[in-house]
């Protein structure tokens, strides 16, 4: 068991990181911490992909000159470029999602003055109650 864990230590680290990220994303009440959790989870996936894509002793997937004006084209010399592509795409996605989430958090903070999603909910229900009371009063006045 321990031997397998040590052999796949990158993957093990990725699993632990993604667990930390997911728990933060779900359980933190502070929105900024939630977003940090999301980023940790994404990073874990990149680590996993990078670990899977790397083969020891092989070069980055950029053609190498063979010394006589040609290129070394054998695929056994290079690592698989697809995981790197996936990581890049993943980073772009995660940056845009983070930016959007932060923008929404800012909006919420401007209105309620808190980053805690539960407190914001409490304030919202309170505001609604006040509004409903006002409406009922106004209606009663009209009827009277």
């Amino acid at each position, binding site marked *: 068991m321990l031997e397998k864990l040590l052999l796949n230590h990158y993957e093990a680290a990725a699993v632990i990181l993604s667990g930390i990220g997911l728990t933060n994303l779900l359980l933190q009440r502070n929105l900024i911490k939630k977003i940090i959790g999301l980023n940790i989870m994404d990073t874990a*996936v990149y680590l996993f992909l990078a670990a899977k894509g790397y083969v020891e002793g092989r070069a980055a997937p950029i053609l190498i000159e063979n010394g006589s004006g040609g290129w070394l084209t054998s695929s056994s010399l290079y690592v698989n470029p697809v995981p790197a592509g996936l990581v890049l795409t993943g980073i772009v*996605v995660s940056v845009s999602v983070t930016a*959007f989430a932060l923008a*929404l*958090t800012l909006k919420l903070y401007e209105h309620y003055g808190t980053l805690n999603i539960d407190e*914001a909910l409490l304030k919202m229900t309170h505001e609604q109650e006040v509004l409903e009371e006002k409406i009922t009063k106004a209606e009663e006045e009209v009827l009277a």
Partner: protein
Amino acid sequence: MINLFAYNIPFISIFLLMISAVITPLIPDKNRIPEKLSCFVIGFIAVLSAYLLYVLTASGQTLSFNFPMGHFPAPWGNELRAGPLEAILALVFCIAMLLSLLGNFSSTEEDIAPKRRNIFCVLVNLLTASLLALTYTNDLFTAYVFIEINTIAACAIVAVKEGPETTRAALRYLVMSLVGSGLVMIAICLLYDLTGHLLMQNMHRAILVLVSTKSYLMPLTVSLALITTGLAIKSALYPFASWLPDAHGSSTNASSAILSGLVLKGHIFTIIKIFYRVFGLEVIHLLRMDTAIFILGLTAMIMGSVHALRQVNVKRMIAWSSVAQVGYIFLGVGLNTTAGIAAACLHIIVHACVKPMLFTAAGGLSNAAGHKKGLHALMGTFYVNHWAGLGLAAGAFSMMGIPGFAGFASKLSLTLASFDSPVIVWSLSALAASSVLNALYYVPAVIVVLTHNKDAHKNFTAPAPTRLYKISMAIFIALNFYLGLFCVPLLRLITRGVNVSL
């Protein structure tokens, strides 16, 4: 043979919408030209999809094809795949999107500030593009990218109506969606690691080899469970649906219609593709995922309706009813037969037509009651806005499954599909119970709307519905009857599509 133009339609559809998304913010917002342009583009793509459907089925054979993006051949390149099923779904998505936008054209003007309307157009275009891409793509990682685009656009069309309530709803929706897409991404990486491919058919072949040699069954199960959970969160399957009523209930009417009718369906169709194109019926059964989905579907059918019963806000009631309807679709998927998937696809189409109609009708009725959304406030609103009242009644009858309305067709096909299955007792009892529960909250709503109310509107004159509203409502109602009365040829077409596509 497929002509060159039809062959390029899947790509052109997605590309045109992307271009339109880039162009709309640059057009000056005079006379709401950006919105009209977006509607035109979506309508044009509906015509293209109808033509593609015609080309794929007209010869009597059922054709399908793979479109290599950038013309790189199979294991390396990215692919789109189109068959009759994809073409029908693209057609229905475009029609429902167009009608949702046109029907709520005036309420969008009220709810969204002028400076934000261009952004709304961008989001609608991106959302449609991502839905079509999810429908057509044959590559799992492309699916992931478009799932994320879909997530951002969907959360943003909730937040585009200004106000703390929508911001909070959008944030909640975003957090849940991100948990979902995180799980999907982890699962896709695991699957890529196990199979070495990202194209669906190649993955399927590799998975068959793994299963036949009984190797890596545990990682396969884990990745299937992760991807199903991730997409189930996004498609609001019951225990994961807590975000839906807030997001769908608080946003502007057009957004609610689009989110409920279309966004959920894109994710559900992705699950169907992953189940049957990537894994295959036998492997899904071997890994027991069909049973899990079936049970979750049953729970959703009952619990969605139970929650809907407790609502006093009409939009939230319709939103919870969506949760129940998503349960119907998953019930069909969980039957794990071709007939079950065809019935699920039919229900996707039916719900994509009926739910936007219900939201548009509810918007019209609450306008007629002076922007009140409480059910009791809607009393007598039928006599102010006849078209909205008719729409609500037609939608409600359809959701209950009254013969002649669209919902009856899909419920009938789900019932017929259950007959081949060992779980027939469960699925029939759930269908019956859920139909009764649907009636319990939709019938009172219709009665309230139809009851005369002498005291209402004394100090308030409701605006008359616009011509655009009447036209789109009439088309919605006509579609509803068409689906209810002529579902047999459609179901046959879907079955042909399921046979070649999955």
